[in-house]
């Protein structure tokens, strides 16, 4: 038995495959945060007055807030004065007009990650708004999307080109005072993505953004805003990798989704940021606020996430179900290895009549990983016949890891139906021996069991993402049994 436990350890201890640093001169602010830094940031980005004011309000409020301590994670106190709040690749100063003008080192980075832009543009038909550090370096397929009336661009560009949309929707789902990290993000966000799907339009392609953190000690504060106007439909993919580093890097993103009547957003994430080494040194702190508001009748949003990276993950993609008959879904796979910690889940806030929500959460813990599901289902007074179904499963590999579940249910509406199911299971030595006795290698057996466990979530992912997600789990678990 002891020997098999050793094997399990080997397999879990797979090194981070995307660990490398691109050498590009960075044009960065010195570390530190005050109103002048925010003014400088806003000026650098040529922002209108209203946005600067909005940032400053957020900052002033943030100064009055305390760092939240309720999550089931542990990490040393962050010194926000030690972080640099702006970093852009030097070659961006002149603004490349096409891929040919992009620093070849950047392109090389994407190639190493297996996401060559040219290939993706030509073959996959996916428009890519790639974020390298804080400035978007390549935006593609914009013309084709424009024909359909779809706006898909960097946040900075949207501020310049469509200030009226920014003014109308920014901060209406996640306000600049919402929580500690959302307020910080509002004050200092550098860039991000913006999507607007006009009335009745079905976005002709899946929209995808690859994020990447590169410069050392640069907190990355992305802001994404997606608006699906009445009767529209869009599928958005977000994938992340980051190079290997020893310092902890803070990432505090905000994602706001607005879904109007009869519209639908499908938001899929595969997150593979550097998780730290096998002793828990380094790794990304991923503190994200993601929220969708189903404003109109029969609107629908679906969050699907596969979280395998980051030293600490702290995110709760949530849905506010305002419109009658609106639908919210959350499908999640979170894997923690070595010393990774994840406190993740969702909030489903039902206000409208006949609203329904589904939560499927799969937590996998290995090594010394700690995996927490935290979810809130709240049924408001007016949410007649609201329904929720929650299924929350944990899988443990080895005996040093932990799985925790904190479901919160609040209902003020007697006609509501709420179902909650939870389970915890373990991949045991008995299971491995059984599989191996049938001629299935231990590695394949673990991969088979883990993938079987995640099946319900993977089937919600777009095809190519599902393949990537399975491969990611495979990489994370490879070599643990030999």
């Amino acid at each position, binding site marked *: 038995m002891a020997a098999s436990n050793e094997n399990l350890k080997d397999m879990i201890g797979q090194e981070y495959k995307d660990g490398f640093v691109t050498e590009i001169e960075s044009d960065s602010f010195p570390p530190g945060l005050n109103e002048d830094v925010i003014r400088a940031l806003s000026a650098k980005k040529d922002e209108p007055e209203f946005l600067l004011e909005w940032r400053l309000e957020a900052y002033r409020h943030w100064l009055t807030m305390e760092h939240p301590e309720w999550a089931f994670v542990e990490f040393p106190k962050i010194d926000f004065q030690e972080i640099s709040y702006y970093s852009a690749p030097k070659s961006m100063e002149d603004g490349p007009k096409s891929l040919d003008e992009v620093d070849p080192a950047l392109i090389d980075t994407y190639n190493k990650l297996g996401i060559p832009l040219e290939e993706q543009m030509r073959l996959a038909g996916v428009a890519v708004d790639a974020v390298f550090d804080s400035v978007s370096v390549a935006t593609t397929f914009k013309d084709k999307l424009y024909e359909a009336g779809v706006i898909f661009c960097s946040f900075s560009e949207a501020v310049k080109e469509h200030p009226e949309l920014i003014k109308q929707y920014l901060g209406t789902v996640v306000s600049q005072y919402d929580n500690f990290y959302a307020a910080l993000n509002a004050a200092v966000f550098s860039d991000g993505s913006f999507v607007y799907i006009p009335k009745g339009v079905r976005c002709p392609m899946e929209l995808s953004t690859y994020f990447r953190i590169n410069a050392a000690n640069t907190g990355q504060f992305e802001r994404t805003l997606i608006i699906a106007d009445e009767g529209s439909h869009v599928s958005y993919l977000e994938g992340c990798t980051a190079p290997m580093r020893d310092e902890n890097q803070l990432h505090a993103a905000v994602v706001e989704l607005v879904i109007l009547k009869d519209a639908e957003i499908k938001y899929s994430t595969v997150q593979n940021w550097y998780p730290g080494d096998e002793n828990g040194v380094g790794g990304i702190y991923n503190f994200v606020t993601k929220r969708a508001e189903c404003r109109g009748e029969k609107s629908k949003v679906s969050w699907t996430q596969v979280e395998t990276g980051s030293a600490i993950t702290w995110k709760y993609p949530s849905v506010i179900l305002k419109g009658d008959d609106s639908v919210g879904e959350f499908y999640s796979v979170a894997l923690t290895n070595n010393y990774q910690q994840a406190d993740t889940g969702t909030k489903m806030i039902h206000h409208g009549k006949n609203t329904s929500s589904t939560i499927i959460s799969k937590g996998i813990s290995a090594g010394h990983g700690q995996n927490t599901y935290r979810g809130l289902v709240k049924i408001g007074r007016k949410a007649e016949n609201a329904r929720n179904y929650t299924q929350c499963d944990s899988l443990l590999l080895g005996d040093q890891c932990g799985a925790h579940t904190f479901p919160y249910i609040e209902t003020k509406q007697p006609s509501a139906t709420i179902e909650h199911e939870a389970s915890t*299971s373990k991949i045991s030595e008995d299971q491995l021996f*059984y599989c191996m006795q049938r001629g299935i290698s231990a590695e394949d057996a673990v991969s*088979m069991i883990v*993938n079987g466990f995640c099946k319900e979530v993977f089937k919600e992912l777009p095809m190519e993402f599902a393949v990537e997600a399975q491969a990611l789990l495979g990489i994370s678990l490879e070599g643990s049994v030999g």
Partner: protein
Amino acid sequence: MLKIENLHVSVEGKEILRGINLEINAGEVHAIMGPNGSGKSTLSYILAGREGYDITEGRVLFHGKDLLEMSVEERAWAGVFLAFQYPVEVPGVSNIYFLKAALNGIRKFNDLAELDAMDFIAMVKGKMKELDMDEKFLYRAVNEGFSGGEKKRNEILQMSVLEPSLCVLDETDSGLDIDALKIVSEGVNRLRDSSRAFILVTHYQRLLDYIKPDFVHVLAHGKVVKSGGPELALELEEKGYSWVDEKLAS
């Protein structure tokens, strides 16, 4: 096919098997009987390669090769199959997927191409029919929520799909009602042929009414204390295991 020579096995310093000698040829069925704690299950696990046992002396040859040097999967690929006394549940993995992964693992080792999906399903369904198993079992997770009898039948299904050369059945009869016992036994009997050998580990003679052994060995205190033909099982049934103890004492 299988040659066990002077096999000594300990667990945490306690000797469980104390010099087992056994030779099994292709086409033969050997029953190993004995009281609880005699080392029957240990012997099954040793052949399959389970961890946690110290082999202090002796060797085991399988088709002339040192079996104890082989990993668990290598033994499976080479044709060793253990029908578990307590088959393990594998949640989230469907029976059909599991069977396919197992069969392809073995075929790959033997330089055979993977079986075509349609042919595979047709083959498995045929075997299920013989074992009176509902096809819906194919799409259920391996052994999950199966009754004791269903689990044992599933073991025999795996055995008939994987077609091993050495089948070790560890108390396959335990927990089976008479109808299930008949079905399982018929399944085993169908697999009997000149190229395959069986080791039936059992506590009771009952199983041997349905699967006729060529040889019966009585295991007690980690040793084979008596070997004989099928009549030995009947004698044992009649006189009880205390008879063996008495013989051993004298």
